[in-house]
Each structure stands twice: as C-alpha cells, then as structure tokens.
C-alpha cells in the first residue's frame, strides 16, 4: 500500500475502548502510523479532516466475509469486496475458504494474499479445516498458517466426522490456531430453505430447525473442552446457541462467538414475501432469538459482529425462492444497521459497538489492530452517527446486490475510511 502524507483528524470524538480513549481528541497520522493523539493538536498537516460531531474509531474488522475469488469472480472479487468494505467503514476482513479451488494449501493462500496486496483494505485469508472441505483429510493447516491464514474454518458446513474435528482441534492447539465453527447438522437441515417454525409450516417449506445449529455448537464446545482448542462460533442465530456459549464462557473456556446484523434485526415472518434476499444459512429465526442475540451482544456472550458478506449475482438470486443460493451481502450496511438498531435504540453503547466491530475481532484473530494509540498502524473509521440514509443496493460497490435491508431507512454511516494512513473511502 502506498504511503500517504500527513493527515490530521480534528474535533472528532475518539472512541478506542482498548486504551480507554473516549472524548474529543485530535489524531495525527504520518507514514501510515498514528503519530500523535491529543486535545486540540495545533500541527500543520497535508490534510485536515474536520470530524466535528463524528465518531473516530479504530478501523472496523469484519471477520466473516466471502470474497469469492478464486473461482466465482462474477459474484465478487478481492478488489470489489475490498471496495465494498471500505465503503462500509471496514478496514480489515477475514475471508472464508469456500472458493474454487478451496483454500486448503499454501499456494491458494499465497494467491489470495497476492491479490489482496492491491486491495483497498486488509484482506486476511482463512484456511479450510479439511482437504477440499470434504471432511475426510486435514488440510495443510500448519503450512497455511505460516503463509498467513488467521484461522481455519469449514464454513458452509460442519466437519461432520467428530473424530476428524477432534484431530483438527488437537492439531490446532500446537500453534494456537483459531478454529471457526460453522454449526449445522445436515441430517437435520438437509433440504431446508428457511427456519423451521410457524412460517415454514404455513408455507409448506422444508425447515432448518434451530437444533441443527445447537447440536453442533454443543458438540464443538465438548470437543474444544476435551482438546483445549480455541474455537469461535460463526454466525450465531438462535437463543439456544447463545445459552450454550454463555455456559461455556462461564466455565472459562476459550470460546468466542459472532453474529450478523440480519440475526439481530430480522425474523422469518418476512419469508411470506418469498424474497430470495432473505434466504441465508443459518436462516432468519424468531423474535425470541433476535432478543436473545441482542442481549448476548450487550452482555459479552457474543464477542463480534461479522456480516457473513456473501455476494451473489442478480441472476443467481432472481429465481424460485427454494432454488436460490443462500447468502446476503452485509459490508455496506453493517455500521448503519448496528447504529440504528442497537446503539440509537440504547441496546448497546457506542463503546460496545466498537468492541464488537473492531477491538474483539482483532483480539480473536490476534492481529495488532483495533485501537487508536500512538505508534499503531493508522486504520481508522470516521462515522457520522446521525446521517440519515436509505439502503439502495444500486449504489453498492459490492458486485452483490443481495441485501436483506433494501429500502431500510438507517441513521449513521461511515464517512471516511483510512487504511494504513491512506484515505480509501470518503463521502
């Protein structure tokens, strides 16, 4: 990434919970690094950003994205995904390995890292747990780790062979490699196209029961307890899963969890409209689940908000509901949705939002980001907390227009995104 000149961010409210900064503080950036923070800095800079009335927060980190490259470049590329992230205020993403070829060896990891070098933001690869995500043989976890992966995951499915999962977890303890668990028992979910419940009964759709997720959360907690591995539960969508994670945390296990904005805002009642942009896996659940997830975000049971950004082409999604692929985009709406539905409604504080979207993902991925402090790399997001806007997928930078929030009125948006001292997005 090119080095920029000096930038002075003036008059904004800096919120950096990790080093307990919260107040109107100026930030000086030079050589890609945070040079200085302080009240009313009176220093000449090449560029002065007026951040009055804005939140100045450590660059946001989305630890669950699908950038589709290599293999599905018509849906998204590392370049377009990174542009979408920048527009959403996200400075670092971790990308899932279900590409074609699957990220299960050093070569593919290096390919992604190579492509990521020219991207607007930081793109960190996640490797598959098993070869070709087939659940039979371990992938080259150690070699991929050396090449730069930040975690392993079979995302898209669970490793169904509990023996292999135990081996994977034991193997990962050697380098303390994070295992991200996509929790889904296919015996229960097979053929399902939405949450199993009132609405699926009503519409005659095969449902994906909540226990399909919870059984695998319980199993992975048990294997992690047995092996001492560090696990992270991806896209938590049910109250039962929240309770299992809460209990495991009470037992002082090394477990973390994430959820996505659609799981704390939408329910399966919306499926009566048969809109394919409301179809994802795990599916939208019920009100009690939404409430449990909001509570878990507030009380620390869930550590991170990650979007599970899963772009598809318009053609992929414009067909029979049960035939369309799972997945929705999220990078360009997560700040607005989280501010509007959680912060402005006083379900969580803005400090907590910064923890969920920056501090904690950095800690989980063990990367040196997630705080605004002297000497740290200058990844910074400036958010206008009250800017009103309406979600319009036509304006997305992502190739994926499949948002579940189309037309939603939001308040709050990232207005400047700085990565490594460079402004990569502003409006």
């Amino acid at each position, binding site marked *: 990434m090119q080095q920029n000149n000096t930038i002075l961010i003036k008059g904004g409210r800096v919120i950096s919970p990790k080093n307990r900064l919260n107040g109107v503080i100026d930030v000086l950036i030079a050589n890609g690094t945070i040079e200085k923070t302080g009240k009313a800095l009176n220093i000449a800079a090449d560029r002065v950003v007026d951040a009055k009335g804005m939140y100045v927060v450590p660059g946001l980190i989305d630890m669950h994205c699908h950038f589709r490259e290599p293999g599905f470049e018509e849906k998204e590329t590392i370049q377009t995904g990174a542009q979408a992230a920048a527009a959403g205020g996200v400075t670092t993403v971790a990308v899932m390995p279900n590409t074609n070829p699957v990220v299960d060896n050093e070569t593919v990891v290096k390919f992604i890292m190579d492509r990521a070098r020219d991207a607007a933001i930081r793109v960190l690869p996640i490797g598959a747990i098993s070869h070709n995500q087939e659940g039979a043989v371990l992938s080259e976890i150690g070699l991929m780790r050396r090449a730069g992966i930040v975690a392993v995951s079979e995302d898209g499915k669970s490793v169904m062979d509990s023996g292999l999962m135990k081996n994977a977890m034991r193997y990962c303890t050697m380098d303390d490699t994070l295992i991200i668990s996509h929790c889904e028992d296919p015996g229960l979910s097979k053929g399902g196209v939405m949450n*199993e*419940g*009132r*609405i*699926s*009964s*009503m*519409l*005659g*759709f095969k*449902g994906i029961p909540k226990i399909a997720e919870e059984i695998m959360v319980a199993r992975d907690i048990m294997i992690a307890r047995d092996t001492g591995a560090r696990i992270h539960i991806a896209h938590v969508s049910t109250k039962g899963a929240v309770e299992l994670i809460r209990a495991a945390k009470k037992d002082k296990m090394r477990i973390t969890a994430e959820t996505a904005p659609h799981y704390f805002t939408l329910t399966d009642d919306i499926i009566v*409209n*048969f809109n394919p942009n409301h179809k994802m896996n795990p599916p939208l659940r019920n009100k009690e689940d939404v409430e449990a997830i909001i509570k878990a975000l507030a009380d620390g049971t869930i550590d991170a908000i990650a979007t599970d950004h899963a772009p598809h082409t318009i*053609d992929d999604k*414009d*067909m*029979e*509901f*049960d*035939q369309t692929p799972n997945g929705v985009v999220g990078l360009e709406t997560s700040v607005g949705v989280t501010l509007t539905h959680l912060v402005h409604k006083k379900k969580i504080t803005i400090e907590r939002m910064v923890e969920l979207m920056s501090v904690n993902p950095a800690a989980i991925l063990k990367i040196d980001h997630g705080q605004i402090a002297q000497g740290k790399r200058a990844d910074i997001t400036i958010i206008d907390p009250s800017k009103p806007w309406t979600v319009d997928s036509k304006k997305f930078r992502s190739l994926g227009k499949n948002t579940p929030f189309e037309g939603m009125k939001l308040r709050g948006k990232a207005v400047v995104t700085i990565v490594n001292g460079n402004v990569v997005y502003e409006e």
Partner: protein
Amino acid sequence: MSLTIKHLLGLRSVPKEDITLILDTAKGFQEVLSRDIKKVPTLRGQTVVNLFFENSTRTRISFELAEKRLSGDTVNFSSAGSSVKKGETLKDTIRNIEAMKIDMVVVRHQSAGVPKYLTECTNAVIINAGDGSNEHPTQALLDMLTMRDRWGALKGLKVAIVGDILHSRVARSNMWGLATMGADLWVCGPETLIPQYMQEFKGVTYTNNLDKALKNAKVVMALRIQLERQSTGLFPSINEYRARWGITAQRLEKSGCSDALIMHPGPINRGIEITTDVADGPNSAILTQVTNGVATRMAVLYLLGGGREHAAE
C-alpha cells in the same frame, strides 16, 4: 359484485366474502355445464396461458376446459423442472410469454411462492394451480363447493382431512379456506406428516387418532400418500400406514360417520389411504369434485378476468 383480490395466489388471506362470491358464481356455472351448449362468451378475446412446470394432466385439463367453456383463447406451456435444471430462468420464461400479449396465467410449479413472484414480473392476472407444498386454492374452492352442495353450509361443518398434511398444498388451502368459512376442520395423520407448528392454522384441530378425527364427521377427505415418503424415514411402512390411518367402511361406521361425504383430490392409491368400496361407495364425491373443478375454475377465471369488464356492462 366483484372480488377484493386481483390474483388468486392462495386462500390464506382471502376474505370470506370473496370465497362466498366464488362459490356462488361456481353454482351458476354448474348450471351452464348441465346445458347442451356449455359455452358462454365471457372470456372472448382474452388469452389464458396454462403454465405448468410440473406434470398435472388433471388440473391442466380442468383449467383448459374451464377456459374454453368461457370462450377464452388457451395456450398450454409445459416445462418440467426449475430454472436451474432447465437453463432458462423463470423470469425469462414468463417475459417471453407475456410478450405474446396474454391476459391471464394459470401456473403450477414445484416451488412455493412462484405465483407471487410472477405477479412481480408481469401485469397478467395470476391464478395459482399449485405451488410447492404451499397452496392449491382452486382445489380447496371446488372442495368447499362440493361440501356446501351436500350439506348446505360450511359453518360448523365437521370436516376431517386424513393423510400427508405436511406436504399437501390441498390440505393447506383447505385449512385456510375452511377456517375462514367457520368449518370445524380436523386434520389427521402420522405425527411426522403433520406440520410441526400447527398453531399457525387457527381454528384447525389436529390429532393422530383417526377415530377422533372421524367422530361424527360430515366430510372425510383422504390425501394421497406418496410412496417415497417411506424411504425418507417419515413413517415405517405402507402396511402400518394402512392399518392406522387407512379409511375403511368399518372405521367410518365405528366413528358414526357412515353418511360422511367421501372426498379425495386424486390420484388415489386404492387400498392404501382409502379402500375401493369407500372410494366408489354411495357417499363418494370423488367424481363430483372433478365436475365441480371445472365450474369452480370458470368462476375464478370469470371473476378475475372477463367478469370485471362484463360486470360493468
């Protein structure tokens, strides 16, 4: 009088007044069908496409006859499989057909929601002829017409629907429609073939006990048991199904419903969900249902299409 609905996608949110109007109109068409010249000019100049993505000769023929009796121009388009399998999207199919200037589309598709989807990509009037396991509204309407003809009123009428409720669009449409009309509807079958969350269907009672479902019922409707459900682990065997939920003369007599109207949306697995003596017995309305199907579909086509203009004359 005209309908509040613009399309017939299902019976879920169709008001009682609309259902009554369709049934009353169908009553009039029953009379037309008994004449020597069974044609009326209602749909003259209008083109109706029967868009069938799933094989159903019976339903298609019934619609086609109804369209012809109303003097409409009929085009049949059959294509098996989903967008993915066919390599042409549903949207392209419907746009192509619409470019040929059509007025109404009768659609049958294996995916729930397709009729609603079509309302978003064409201006034609859409009539659902069965979507996935969701709804088959004209079947339920013809069922209600048949029940009403036999017993006078639907309100308070005890109706038992027995069989694979879970996968049945006929059952769902009947559940919505009969509940709206105030019938005393019972559904019965193995627990695994009943939707797990039945509370959504207000006014519908469900039980696994066939004798309870049949007790003093005025209408007994058996549903087809798809033989492949057994291999997917939903019930142990046809033999066990027949023994526990098969409709026989003895079961009917034991439950005090020997005079119940016997219905079945067809095609029948004789000797499995219903015995031949019951299916062909004096109370069987199975063929009457077929006849009423044409009258009911004429009513729907008339009220949603030609009826609107003709009513103004």
